[in-house]
């Protein structure tokens, strides 16, 4: 530990406060902008106190959307994003925990080959395989559907790898004891392995939820129907209205709303999340 000295105390606080300001100030500006007239933001001087337009901006975005920019109501887009992020997070975790379980606890031919193939796909992010993936999804008729939005993003080498590494630290005797206790493989998985992995699952859930929430390129490709727009896509469309002054208050209201769900997820899962990333004692 670093020694406690008044000077060091002040210094560390200054650094922390600076860090917080750098991160939090833009968020604050976004919120302030959403409470002013559309013109207030482009006047050149940023207002730093809340205006009186808060209810109007949020009310309009939530209920009606912005028809001029071709944006559906925010409720709809938030719902779509939520469905997408949840499906991706839950899907990724279910599939990867099962494949890690298979790789670590079963001896079958080509086990290591399977692992390496999964591992190699770590090097192939969505963007690299986006054209073939699009072709497959389009041919399967999954454009403009939740399946099309989520399925291609569910397979996850990262999560499989992380679960594999975690399972390898779980003492083998635990599995042997449960075998002696009369638990078959799936019973062991359900009764012992899942509860033991709960903090890791929580940590991955947070990461994967945010990953799903901020997806932009993929939804842009597979959705043309407004009913399937996600919130990130909506923000982009609000800003893209050319030859018109962007309605900054509406954009910022949408941005503020878009930030809420991930923040809530992190807040609620914070305890488990931190435990999952740091806990080593089992």
């Amino acid at each position, binding site marked *: 530990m670093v020694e406690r000295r008044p000077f060091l105390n002040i210094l560390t606080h200054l650094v922390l406060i600076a860090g917080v300001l750098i991160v939090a100030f833009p968020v604050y500006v976004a919120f302030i902008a959403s409470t002013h007239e559309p013109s207030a933001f482009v006047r050149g001087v940023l207002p730093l106190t809340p205006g009186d337009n808060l209810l109007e901006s949020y009310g309009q975005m939530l209920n009606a959307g912005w028809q001029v920019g071709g944006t559906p109501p925010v409720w709809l887009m938030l719902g779509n994003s939520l469905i997408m992020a949840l499906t991706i997070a839950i899907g990724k975790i279910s599939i990867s925990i099962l494949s890690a379980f298979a790789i670590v606890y079963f001896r079958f031919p080509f086990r290591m080959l399977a692992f390496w193939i999964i591992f190699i796909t770590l090097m192939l992010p969505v963007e690299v395989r986006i054209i073939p993936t699009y072709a497959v999804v389009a041919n399967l008729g999954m454009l403009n559907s939740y399946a099309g939005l989520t399925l291609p993003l569910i397979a996850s080498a990262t999560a499989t790898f992380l679960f594999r590494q975690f399972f390898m630290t779980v003492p083998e005797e635990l599995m*042997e004891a449960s075998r*002696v206790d*009369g638990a078959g493989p799936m019973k062991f998985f359900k009764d012992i392995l899942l509860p033991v992995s709960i903090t890791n699952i929580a940590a991955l859930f947070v990461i994967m939820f945010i990953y799903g929430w901020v997806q932009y390129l993929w939804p842009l490709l597979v959705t043309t129907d407004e009913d399937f727009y996600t919130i990130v896509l909506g923000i982009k469309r609000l800003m893209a209205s050319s030859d018109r002054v962007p309605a900054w208050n509406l954009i910022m209201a949408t941005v503020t709303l878009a930030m809420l769900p991930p923040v809530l997820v992190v807040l609620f899962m914070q305890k488990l999340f931190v435990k999952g990333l740091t806990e080593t004692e089992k």
Partner: protein
Amino acid sequence: MASITLEGLRKTYAGNVQAVKGVDLAVEDGEFVVLVGPSGCGKSTLLRMVAGLETISEGTLKIGDRVVNTLEPAERDIAMVFQNYALYPHMTVYQNLAYGLKNRGFKKPVIEERVQKAAKMLEIEDFLSRKPRNLSGGQRQRVAMGRALVREPAAFLFDEPLSNLDAKLRVQMRVEIRKLQRRLKTTSLYVTHDQLEAMTLGDRLVVLNGGLIEQVGTPMEIYARPASMFVAGFIGSPAMNMVPIEYLSSRGARELLVDLPPETDIVGIRPDDMRLSPPETPHLVVESTLELFEAAGAESHLYVRLAESEQPTVIRVSGQPPVNEGETLRFYVTREALHPFNSDTGQRTG
């Protein structure tokens, strides 16, 4: 309750590594048999084969009259206590004990009754609602025992269950395991590398070396008549001294050594069979310089070097004799104390 019969058991790992090279053993109903040997001797592998955690490469394994070679561990009606306890970390002590019964479809009241009974026997009733991480090492050990107990299995298998405990607790648990086994009369197989644990616990010992049985017998039989140099060196602490026969005969004690079998070229002498005062019966006299004196309270260890050997010879005497390091000492050994061996075969000669 049941007997356990091992017939020609072999374990061969990939790459033709043989961990167990043909073991025959009959554990009788209610008997406490200890498998003992140095690390890598195959004792744990053997136990895990009985448990069903390792496949059997060759041979037959019977529990009772049933051949169980290919049965799952759960179908063999055995319970196992692991070295690191392997308690389910997310379950309370109660749930840990109840898990095996629950999986076997026992009714709630039966589970409750059996768990309470086992908890009472092991004095862990007060911790039933705690999680394993809130227990001390000794308490975890009891819970691990309890998990085996509630099942009321045909046999208990112990895989070095005491080696994670501190010395004091180890002695205490050793006594308790012995008492418990006497009371329940459940057939038990116990693996350890600690010869003292083996001597004090077992009805019979099985000394293993290099995947083969060196000797089977009661602890005192093995101590009094080790069948090979390996067993002689492994059982008993400090280990038995090995002295070449030429050294002894050059000390002018030929008449005492003539009746030893002719192939004998080395004799073993227990550290406590070398006396500082001459006995009544015919004896050998050995002289040597005291290299090191070790006082261990009730007894003392004297280290001398005989015949330019690399290993010092250890002598155990009770109390603290008035000797000084560097002084030349005389030791007396009777004929009965000599264990004759052949150093080429490693076997006892008579």
